[in-house]
């Protein structure tokens, strides 16, 4: 048994952390939020240069052909630094959906531009299957809460066709039949959009897999990757809470020396550590493409959602009044915790999935 990342993977993580510490301070995140810029383009260019979006894309398609484990360590650091980029939408979701549900020819055509970051892609797969209808290879309808929908070049939409079958369709967001509108959300550093389609042209994803199955597979992968982002966020909040309460004095002693604060931080640590260990197991299952993945992914996701909510809210509490100010970074993590937890269907939905899988195991 070797239930840990390799030295190489840890090196990648160290480098990622170093780069992000330099290029993605909270000032970067705040700039995106304050200016309504949707993402930090300079940071995204850096990330592209380092080849992160290409991590799990096969070398034949211009990727690095690495395993999901490398993506997991990168995810941790993106989560820790609250990186305001379309990485989740484009890499975890859209790239994976294309790898899973597109035909070989489509993959060969589309993946290289995702690998090199020329194209930013997203997905619009939530809501009802009948939100969008495809007729004669043209789509009409609306999708809400589309991650980075304002800046993506293309989107994969789940939609129903004339025969009432669910399918996945690629839509170019430059198409004249598409309009988009930003939707204010709890975390403006992961902005959402409403997409409206009116007879926009589509390409059907042509792989040998049903849309339902493809979405399920990709959601499981994304659940593990998001869990690492959430664990990274948890670690950041614990560090913040420790630093602030150690520096601050009340009643003549460090706030961190009060048992109520120590035990609060211990509870945050415990939740984070359970989430981290569950994420590790998910990473193993993901990298080994093991049958355990379905249960492991749901477990990692639920554990990480609970941990990040706890850590981000109690970090505010540990900061006292200052934690409630816009000026302090506490709320950026709290907002991110909300944004990540609602993705892919929210906590109750994933708890129910977990139990389905546990009882079937």
């Amino acid at each position, binding site marked *: 048994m070797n239930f840990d990342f390799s030295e190489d993977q840890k090196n990648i993580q160290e480098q990622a952390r170093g780069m992000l510490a330099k290029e993605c301070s909270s000032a970067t995140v705040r700039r995106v939020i304050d200016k309504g810029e949707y993402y930090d383009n300079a940071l995204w260019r850096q990330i592209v240069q380092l080849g992160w979006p290409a991590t799990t894309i096969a070398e034949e398609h211009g990727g690095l052909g690495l395993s999901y484990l490398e993506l997991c360590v990168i995810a941790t650091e993106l989560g820790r630094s609250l990186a305001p980029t379309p990485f989740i939408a484009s890499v975890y979701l859209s790239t994976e959906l294309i790898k899973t549900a597109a035909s070989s020819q489509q993959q060969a055509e589309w993946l290289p531009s995702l690998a090199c970051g020329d194209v930013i892609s997203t997905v619009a797969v*939530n*809501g009802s299957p009948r939100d969008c209808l495809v007729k004669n290879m043209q789509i009409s309808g609306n999708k*809400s*809460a589309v991650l980075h929908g304002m800046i993506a070049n293309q989107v994969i939409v789940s939609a129903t066709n004339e025969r009432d079958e669910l399918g996945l369709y690629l839509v170019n967001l430059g198409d004249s039949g598409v309009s988009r509108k930003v*939707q*204010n*959300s*709890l*975390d403006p550093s992961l902005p*959402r959009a409403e997409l409206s389609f009116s007879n926009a042209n589509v390409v059907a994803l042509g792989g040998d897999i049903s849309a339902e199955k493809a979405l399920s597979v990709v959601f499981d992968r994304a659940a593990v990757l998001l869990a690492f982002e959430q664990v990274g966020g948890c670690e950041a909040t614990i560090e913040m809470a420790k630093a602030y309460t150690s*520096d*601050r*004095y*009340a*009643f*003549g*002693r*460090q706030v961190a020396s*009060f048992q*109520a*604060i120590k035990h609060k931080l211990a509870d945050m640590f415990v939740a984070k550590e359970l989430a981290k260990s569950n994420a590790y197991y998910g990473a193993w299952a993901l990298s080994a493409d093991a049958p355990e993945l379905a249960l492991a992914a749901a477990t990692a996701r639920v554990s990480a*959602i609970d941990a990040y*909510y706890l850590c981000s*809210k109690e970090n*505010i*509490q540990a900061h*006292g*009044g*200052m*934690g*409630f*100010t*816009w*000026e*302090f970074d*506490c*709320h950026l993590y*709290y*907002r991110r915790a*909300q*944004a990540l*937890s*609602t*993705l*892919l*269907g*929210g*906590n*109750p*939905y994933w708890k129910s999935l977990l139990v389905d899988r546990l009882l079937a195991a």
Partner: protein
Amino acid sequence: MDFKDSPEQAEFRAEIRCWLQSNARAKSASGGRKDQSEAYEDAKAWYKKVADAGYACLNWPKQYGGAGLTDIHKVIWSQEVSNYDEPDAYFVIGIGNCGPALMHFATEEQKQHLLPPMASAETVWCQMFSEPSAGSDVAGLRTTAVADGDKWLINGQKIWTSGAQHSDYGVILCRTDPTISKYRGMTMFFIDMRQAGVEVKPIKQMDGGSHFNEVFFNNAVIPDAYRLGDVGGGWGAALLVLMNERLAIAGVQPDGFPEFLSLVKTLHIDGEPISANPAVREHLAEWYYKHAGIKASTNRMLTAVAKGGMPGAEAALGKLVGAVMNQDIANYAIQLMGDTGSISEPEFAQQQAHFQKTVLFSPGIRLAGGTDEVMRNVIAEQVLGLPQEPRADKGLAFNEIPSGNQSR
């Protein structure tokens, strides 16, 4: 045991019910959220109208702008006015906290001069205790008042002052002697908020609002006549002010339950009403008994007050339980909504994005007026009588107390 009014109370209730019917705005007439200065003007107008009718500060003596009635009349008033859309609690901190401070410590002349316009909100007051380095440890405050003949020179900074930007006067707690024990070296004053040397700066909150302020004092000069109580008697005066706050706050604290109940009654997921889902129902049951328990606890406290008792530290439980559940309810509601849960557009999200707004505002409720941890300390020490922790600042002069890197 009953919920009936006494004949005299029933008569009073009928009287104000009648007055409110012709003078207060109905709930349905609500014009939605107002911006801050609009809301302030609106509240001033309401308070003035109430004062003109003789219903301001019902439990204050008549000569100070009140109606000379009891706390229970005030409770009846609150119950009745809660059926209308009027900003009746808008100036609760000024009137509920600063009022008693003046009542207790000001000269007769000052009281007659200052209290009636406070009661009618023609002058508005704020309370300045907290400081950047004195949060849960209020007595750790550092704003100095230095005597200069029959004047005092105020320097320092206050924070978390509600409504400072709209206030005419403020009650302020200052350090007048840093060389003795921290509790004995404080004095209370009031100050003109418009005078030279006083600067108010709104704080931008994590939810984007600016309910609170920082207030900076830079050689602000006040006469000794503005002193409330003895030099060195500030802590006792502050405790008296905070004690009065309890009744004002009891039962006002939002706990988020009514909105959650509405959500459960209306929301469907995948075509199923969530009210049929046992997981949702379990949460509903737990939050309901807390909500009902807070309400019933408040009624027990009001009964005790009506019999002549003082509101006890038990009031802390409503704040503790309500603030935590308010946050958890909002988070749970958003999780139920799934992918669209984080969308905060009022036209899009359930109940004009109530839950999304609450997610961002509720952390502040857990902090304002004492953190969860302070509430538990209050209950443990003041209600249960458990021993204090050993005090690291005990027996030390204020300027000898360890304070780490915090600026003094």
